[in-house]
């Protein structure tokens, strides 16, 4: 009976199939069916890492957080100015160290509990009193970036905390006190990492219990399954196996309710694959549109939105590298040698601009009246000659296998700029490195780099977030020590009066462009695209797009 073996096998498979069919319960909720026209599937480049934004610093986690949670203040729609969020108004006291926030009333968390001053304090105290692994820079990156340290720093290298205390004066009034005046307040409080969570949910799901061991951090259930905020959408499910995260309309939202019933974020890491998925109708929008795709997609009728540029690409010069770079004339020669306009015209997306400061002109404190270094090869050669640096050889680092919003195609940019420098008589030794970890390590530590590209996308609308991040202290990236400049930064940072601080930023921008630690190259507007029939979304320079206003044209 050997011939029957295949038949026996088929029979066995059929029996097995029958046996498994119906052996498990479907947990499908039959009432949840809705028309596809109130469901938007949006393609994103990566999975979110964590759903509690207190622990997040990656763009995809923050994108979800911005729909589910709200902060005390928020950026204006489509801009960077500080506008009311969960707080209706805010004022500093005379010293500038205590801020009083007047809160909205009638706001409820997704679990039905009330939002009030007490809840705000629970949140700030939770961050401030972080213990153990919650103090890891890997876990609370943004808190440490903005506030420095904690109530009790467990690592002696942590700075003291900027945050001091929170006092709930009545249900809708809360005082936040800080240890000193800082430019970060109140603008930084618009970061999703300062989202207000439901105190009940925080406790119920053990949100502060970051467990495991140092090398093996485990987030509590709250951070992966139960994020509970006040936003226009509620978290529904995160299907890691299918790379999708689903949120749905919060029907009890205090403001304008979301027009979509369901919003699904679907991870498609490959840029071309996202484009194909949009064209085939799998998704109805995606982010991180390649600069070369902007015009074709527009031509096909897709709704391509260009965000106002809120970033900077710069060419850094390391004064600790080649000793000649300590000479201002050599740095000026480099700046004059670069044809930045040609680079912007040929390699960056439509709407990109040549940078004049190390911050975009949408940020207060930008200064058009600074030393500008127009493209002039002869002047560059002349300056090199004066400095006795003819025939100078520089190591030029550029990253591979990466695109950043400010730098869509590093290799192309490198080729253009290195050709410019060579035309001025500077010899270039190209050093291509993999972005992570090699490139980032090589350019921000040690002294083996002379020139390199790097950039920044702003977190919130204050100038310090740009120029302070780069230049307010001694850094291996730039290799200089300029105490006068550092002092000037300190003074600006501790100026509570907004208008006065802005004037100080203007002076700083002038000082920076005179000192010329590097050359600001460009600001590129990143694009985001939606389906032909999707409307209602306004592009935000801070990537704070509000999907609640999105709808399908009928």
């Amino acid at each position, binding site marked *: 009976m050997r011939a029957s073996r295949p038949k026996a096998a088929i029979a066995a498979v059929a029996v097995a199939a029958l046996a498994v069919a119906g052996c*498990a319960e479907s947990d499908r909720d039959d009432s949840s069916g809705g028309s596809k026209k109130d469901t938007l*599937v949006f393609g994103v480049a990566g999975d979110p890492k964590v759903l509690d934004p207190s622990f997040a610093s990656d763009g995809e986690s923050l994108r979800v957080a911005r729909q589910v949670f709200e902060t005390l203040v928020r950026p204006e729609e489509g801009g960077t100015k500080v506008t009311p969020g969960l707080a209706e108004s805010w004022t500093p006291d005379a010293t500038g160290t205590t801020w009083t926030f007047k809160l909205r009333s009638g706001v409820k968390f997704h679990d039905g509990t009330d939002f009030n001053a007490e809840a705000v304090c629970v949140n700030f105290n939770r961050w401030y009193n972080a213990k153990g692994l919650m103090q890891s820079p890997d876990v609370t*990156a943004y808190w440490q970036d903005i506030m420095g340290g904690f109530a009790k720093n467990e690592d002696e290298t942590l700075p003291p905390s900027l945050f001091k205390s929170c006092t709930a004066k009545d249900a809708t009034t809360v005082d936040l006190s800080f240890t000193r005046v800082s430019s970060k307040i109140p603008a930084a409080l618009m970061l999703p990492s300062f989202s207000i969570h439901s105190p009940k949910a925080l406790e119920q799901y053990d949100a502060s219990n970051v467990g495991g061991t140092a*090398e093996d951090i485990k987030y509590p259930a709250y951070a992966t399954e139960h994020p509970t905020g006040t936003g226009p959408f509620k978290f529904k499910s995160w299907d*890691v*196996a299918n790379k999708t995260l689903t949120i749905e309309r919060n029907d009890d939202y205090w403001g304008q309710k979301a027009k979509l019933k369901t919003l699904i974020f*679907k991870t498609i890491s490959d840029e071309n694959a996202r484009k194909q998925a949009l064209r085939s109708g799998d998704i109805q929008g995606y982010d991180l549109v390649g600069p070369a795709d902007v015009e074709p997609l527009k031509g096909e009728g897709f709704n391509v939105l260009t965000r106002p540029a809120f970033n900077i690409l710069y060419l850094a010069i390391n004064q600790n590298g080649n000793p000649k770079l300590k000479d201002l004339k050599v740095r000026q020669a480099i700046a004059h040698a670069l044809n930045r306009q040609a680079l912007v015209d040929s390699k960056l997306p439509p709407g990109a601009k040549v940078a004049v400061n190390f911050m975009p002109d949408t940020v207060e404190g930008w200064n058009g009246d600074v030393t500008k270094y127009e493209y002039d090869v002869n002047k560059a050669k002349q300056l090199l000659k004066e400095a006795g640096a003819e025939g100078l050889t520089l190591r030029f680092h550029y990253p591979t296998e990466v695109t950043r919003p400010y730098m869509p195609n590093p290799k192309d940019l490198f080729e253009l700029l290195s050709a410019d420098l060579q035309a001025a008589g500077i010899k270039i030794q190209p050093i291509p490195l993999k972005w992570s*970890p090699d490139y980032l390590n090589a350019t921000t530590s040690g002294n083996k780099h002379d020139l390199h590209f790097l950039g920044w996308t702003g977190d919130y609308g204050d100038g310090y977030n740009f120029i302070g991040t780069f230049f307010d202290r001694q850094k291996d990236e730039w290799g200089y020590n300029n105490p006068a400049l550092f002092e000037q930064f300190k003074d600006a940072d501790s100026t509570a009066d907004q208008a006065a601080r802005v004037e100080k930023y203007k002076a700083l921008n002038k000082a920076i462009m005179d000192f010329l630690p590097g050359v600001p190259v460009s600001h590129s507007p990143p694009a985001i695209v939606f389906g032909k029939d999707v409307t209602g979304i306004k592009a935000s320079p801070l990537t704070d797009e509000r999907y609640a206003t999105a709808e399908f044209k009928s």
Partner: protein
Amino acid sequence: MFRFIVRRLLQLIPTLFGLSLLLFIWLRRLPGGPETAILGERGTPEMRAAIRRSMGLDEPILVQYGRFVRRLIRLDLGTSTSTKRSVVSEFLERFPGTVELTVTALVIAIGVGIPLGYLAARRRGRLLDHLSVGGSLIGICIPVFFLAYVLKAIFSENLGWFPSSGRQDPTIDATRITNFFVLDGIMTREWDAAADAIWHLVLPGLALASIPLAIIVRITRASVLEVLNEDFVRTAEAKGLTERTVRRRHVLRNSLLPVVTSIGLLTGGLLSGAVLTETVFAFTGIGAFIYDAINQRDYPVLMGFILIIAVVYVLVNLLVDLSYSLIDPRVRVR
């Protein structure tokens, strides 16, 4: 046979320890660590050092390895440094996708490859032979990711017959049990979910099948040609057996041994080598995840995934060895 299986499984233990030690040392010799990927351009040398300290990466390598082995013995593979989720659950969520894709590709490659190779050999020098030999050459030459883009452009973007990405339409409210989406759909009788999952497998399965299909066609063809010239085939024909019996019982069966060996090797390659297909089709599997883990120096994921894949690879080849005895009774495993 039982002793054979036990012996092969016991051999796994020293293999795994050797592999884990080599991997551990090699990974930590790579420049940079997870801290750079975690911090991106926001990182300063001080912040990176703080993360290294907090993760225990500044300790001697043997101390770190000792900790790893102690956990491994408890079957705890640790937590991903980039996703902060347990390596085991990351694996259980991603591996089923890779298995579904591999099985689809194998079904296509075997189902089409063996008959085609056999027919090509039988019609040697005729049109079908030329077509299949030429076609298989093209199959081997075309890069998989290119084929994937072409398939998507035609069947998804233009014709709209198949979805272009993912494992299942996210608007389908599917119940997850094993994370094998087709199986889950059958088990829960959510037929739409199962059908949709199969639908999502077609294009990536075709793209991934191209190279194994070409290899199977060529090996089958060569093997059949060789067997056709054997004495026992002539004997069988001479003693008056029908052509059908000669074909099935003598030619095909004897030709299959090298084909099965190559399928065993191809399976291992498919399981760990579907990176490009997974990326192009945004298909949740282990390939693309491992690739990212290398860039992010996600040591726990790399260690865990590679060790589990090694186990799977050994098991697949064990199955292949066992199947020899089914095909050729003269082969007995000892």
